[in-house]
């Protein structure tokens, strides 16, 4: 679904990282990451905790600074100045593990704030857009409530709607279901699946392997800050090549 006409050359990847490296002092958090995500592609990033997967997607919208390499998003090269950072952040939405809704604003106000402040929408326009998207995540009847009055699953769906209100070209999901009670995981995954089916470009850090099987075009496995293996889900799950991948899959699938 092409929401913005001006999305550049269609053969150009939506998101690309080349040679990205990041250090916390002497500790190397990301090691020579090369990755390219085409428009409409869905990527699932997985790996043991501390493998750098969250750090990686947080670099894409510059919530984390990186020291080496280049990141391009929607034709914009992400520099370290605030101009290109803001431009990139307008193009990619992010959903967090802890939802991070603004607790002092209603659901509707949460969704209207950024379109008004950063896209310059009029209040009525922003409200229209917010209500449409709340409808789409099936939570429109909660628009006047405050986040604390909602369940975790509902809050996360609001967070998705809030990100979509910016009409992003791509969405980043950082363990969106990890903080949820088990019975609420499905409603959030269903929302993400619906979004995927509409053609959104998505990078999801998640341990929901069922979601990966159903939705992902590629699964990328990371360990110790590096990409170890990437493959389409069928191949990734049935025939993992690396020992570390096998070990990880054994642990994560063995749990169920």
């Amino acid at each position: 679904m092409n929401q913005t006409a001006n999305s550049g050359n269609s053969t150009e990847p939506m998101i690309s990282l080349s040679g990205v490296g990041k250090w916390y002092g002497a500790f190397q958090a990301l090691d020579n990451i090369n990755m390219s995500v085409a428009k409409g592609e869905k990527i699932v990033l997985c790996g043991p905790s501390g493998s750098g997967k969250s750090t990686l997607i947080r670099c894409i919208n510059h919530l984390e600074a990186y020291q080496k390499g280049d990141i391009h998003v929607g034709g914009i090269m992400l520099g370290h100045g605030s101009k290109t950072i803001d431009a990139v952040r307008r193009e990619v939405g992010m959903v967090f593990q802890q939802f991070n809704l603004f607790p002092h604003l209603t659901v509707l106000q949460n969704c209207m704030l950024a379109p008004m402040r950063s896209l310059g929408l009029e209040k009525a326009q922003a409200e229209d857009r917010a209500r449409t998207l709340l409808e789409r995540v099936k939570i429109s009847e909660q628009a006047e409530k405050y986040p604390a009055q909602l369940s975790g699953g509902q809050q996360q769906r609001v967070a998705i709607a809030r990100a979509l209100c910016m009409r992003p070209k791509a969405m980043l999901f950082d363990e969106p279901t990890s903080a949820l009670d088990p019975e609420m995981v499905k409603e959030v995954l269903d929302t993400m699946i619906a979004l995927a089916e509409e053609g959104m470009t998505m990078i999801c850090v998640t341990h929901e392997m069922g979601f990966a099987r159903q939705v992902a075009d590629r699964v990328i496995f990371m360990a110790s800050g590096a990409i170890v293996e990437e493959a389409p889900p069928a191949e990734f799950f049935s025939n993992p090549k690396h020992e570390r991948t096998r070990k990880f899959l054994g642990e994560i699938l063995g749990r169920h």
Partner: protein
Amino acid sequence: MGREEFLFLLAGLKWTVALSVVAFICGSIAGLMVALARTSGIFIVERLTAGYIAVFQGTPLLMQLFVVYYGLALIGIQMDAWAAVSVGLTLHASAFLGEIWRGSIEAVPRGQTEAAKALSLGYVSRMKDVVLPQAIRISLPATIGFLVQLIKGTSLASIVGFTELTRAGNIISNQIFQPLTVFGVVGALYFLMCCPLTIYGAHLERKFLTASR
């Protein structure tokens, strides 16, 4: 103590209130700047404001008033007592409120700022729309506590010759030689201003405690 004496005390009370209000409003504006500078992430700015706060927290308010009142006169800036104590109390309040609000700004979860950044909100909107409304809530009990301190602190203005409530009491006491009665009344007047604020602060604290559960 007669009616006239009491009215004189009330006139002093009026100046105590005026001084408290001016110091609190001006101190709040300056204190907000201090808190923002203190959390700016710019090393040199943060160090400088930390120094500013340390100076005002580490010296007695009375000294600060003396320095403003006599010191500024020495370098050729003439101010009447009212202006001098206003400036002195404003500086004092800005440092304390700045530190209280720095703590509150830092108490707002990091995820809030990150979510705002991810939505490409700029610094001004991040602060004004997201962080400060939450920080103010967190800081209200401590802010009210400081306001009570500030109201009582205005009594030190009497020493540089400004006729607020305490000095008015002093004057009356010297006229009618009933210090216990006079200062009893003066104390009661301070209490009537401060106690409701303290109770209100405690009430807010309880309210936020239950709200955050």
